[in-house]
């Protein structure tokens, strides 16, 4: 009788242990995910192959862009967020191609694909010793603006490679729900 009880308890313990192992095991997606390099707005965030410093964030309702020699105004369903970033290559020439805007609720907004013809956007080729500025342009919901994180990496599948994670801090909202310093039109035809 005692022996039977002991067996049952042992079985339960083994089950609990196996369940614990299964629950606490990191997922494959986490194991091969990017390696974060953290920083704040204005910090130089150093990754393996590149260094990024987000200088400033601007918000606007419309963007003025040169498109094949013509100036066009681009509207959006949300709000345009334009981040000016200075990049530097560490040991060898490389290309930084991917950026996304992660809102406070975890929604991830990739760079807009509507302005792919414009200059000064990613992908940007960088050489050691020659820092270069670029603009990252996102279309985001106004409620995903405050306390957002900027994610920058060299390639789309940056498995086991650096990803700069720059926290952009709180943004005060105006009466209309948009950030207080939102401008009506931001002129991207001006040099960075």
């Amino acid at each position, binding site marked *: 009788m005692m022996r039977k009880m002991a067996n049952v308890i042992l079985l339960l313990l083994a089950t609990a242990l196996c369940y614990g192992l299964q629950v606490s095991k990191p997922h494959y*997606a986490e194991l091969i995910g990017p390696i974060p390099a953290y920083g704040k707005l204005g910090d130089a965030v150093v990754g393996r192959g590149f260094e990024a410093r987000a200088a400033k964030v601007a918000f606007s309702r419309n963007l003025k862009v040169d498109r094949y020699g013509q100036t066009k105004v681009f*509207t959006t369903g949300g709000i345009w967020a334009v981040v000016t970033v200075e990049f530097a290559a560490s040991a060898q020439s490389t290309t930084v191609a991917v950026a996304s805007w992660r809102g406070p609720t975890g929604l*991830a*907004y990739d760079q807009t694909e509507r302005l792919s013809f414009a200059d000064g956007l990613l992908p940007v080729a960088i050489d050691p010793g020659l820092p270069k500025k670029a603009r990252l342009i996102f279309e985001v919901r106004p409620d*995903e603006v405050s306390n957002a994180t900027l994610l920058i990496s060299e390639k789309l599948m940056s498995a086991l490679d650096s990803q700069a994670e720059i926290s952009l801090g709180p943004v005060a909202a105006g009466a209309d729900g948009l950030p207080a310093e939102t401008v009506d039109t931001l002129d991207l035809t001006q040099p960075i």
Partner: protein
Amino acid sequence: MLEAARSRLKAGIVAGIGTAAAIAVAGVLGAFGARHEPMPVLAQTSRIETGQWLLQPLKAYVTDGKHAYGAPLKPGGKALVLEVEMTNRTAKSSKDYFEILRASQTAVDAATKPFIVLMRDSTLSPELHPGMPERMAYIWEMQPGVVSPTSFDLMVIGKTYKQRDNLYGLPGWFNPTPIGTLTLAVGAGPDKAQVQP
């Protein structure tokens, strides 16, 4: 001797009954699986959820190259256009919308892939961002010399979310499955009034 033969017979009968029961159960289950549910007919005025997307059909019309949002149509070709408001329901920017609408229409060749254009500025298939509704135009090039149809039949296809796929263990949307059919009246041109929700 007789005893042994009897027990062997018994075992044989039991095994036979078991096999027959298994086959019967499998057959019945198979019959249930093969039974075709009639495809639900989706109302054009309602919002349609395909898993990743929320669709709100706006209008359908036939147009020539001039009003096709810059889609590269063959000279003199006509196109069947569906305007739809799409909202990304996922947590990530995505352009996984190439397979969600399939034209089941004789005027459109089944192999024709539509041009998908952002109506705001005619960008060809850009990523759409989470929680931001955008108006998109699906543009199917029509076969030459076909009479313009008066109604447009579509199959709506949805996908299901998997936390971990079987190959890479990564999250994603898989298994495209038809979720219903949609029929829209076809107008003469882009000025046609919108479907009122």
